[in-house]
């Protein structure tokens, strides 16, 4: 079956520092990867959608300068949170598309900022 692993599961960083998180699709090739942030209040925000052979599309309020994403192959994607501050805390989720219609999610990387 389709599995998506995210690493690390939890991380703490000091305010103003950066943190990189990874997303690995296992058992399938992901034609696109979507990165989300879920706030402590459980609200979802779509950060960006990365599709093979296309430019990464960032949503409003999210930029490549703040959340650079790497998507080097169909199984792996990483995202960095640069200069993290308190408002960046939350659960960062990676959804990898398998087949024509379905996104499979990892368990997320929970970011705390001190």
């Amino acid at each position, binding site marked *: 079956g389709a599995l998506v692993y995210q690493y690390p599961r939890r991380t703490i960083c000091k305010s103003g520092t950066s943190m990189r998180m990874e997303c690995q699709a296992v058992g399938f090739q992901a034609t*696109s990867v*979507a990165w989300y942030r879920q706030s402590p209040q459980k609200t979802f925000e779509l950060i960006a*959608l990365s599709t093979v052979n296309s430019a990464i599309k960032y949503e409003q309020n999210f930029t490549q300068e703040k959340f650079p994403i790497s998507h080097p192959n169909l199984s792996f994607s990483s995202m960095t949170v640069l200069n993290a501050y308190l408002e960046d805390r939350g659960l960062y989720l*990676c*959804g990898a598309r398998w087949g*024509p219609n379905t*996104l*499979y*999610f990892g*368990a997320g990387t929970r970011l705390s900022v001190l």
Partner: protein
Amino acid sequence: LAKTTQPPSMEAYEGQEVNVSCSHTNIATSEYIYWYRQVPHQGPQFIIQGYKDYVVNEVASLFISADRKLSTLSLPWVSLRDAAVYYCIVTDIQGGRALIFGTGTTVSVSP
């Protein structure tokens, strides 16, 4: 993107059937209906998807009205493990769009 409306919460006892409704009055002809659920400390988990009529898998059933403006996720014989937030999402994922999550329906299950 079609906006969806779900009840904020529902309660059930173990063994009962739970039906979670979702209204999507502005659904486009290119859009599909997806249901996901999320338990604490995990990412959303795909349950079922459909375009029209009736879809069933080993986990749930999905009923879609004839005009596609309303869908109902049916969970037979719920257990404590089915307690989660259930999200109804309408989108054209084949058109390269990502899923947009709303606030979902919190389903509580009691013994």
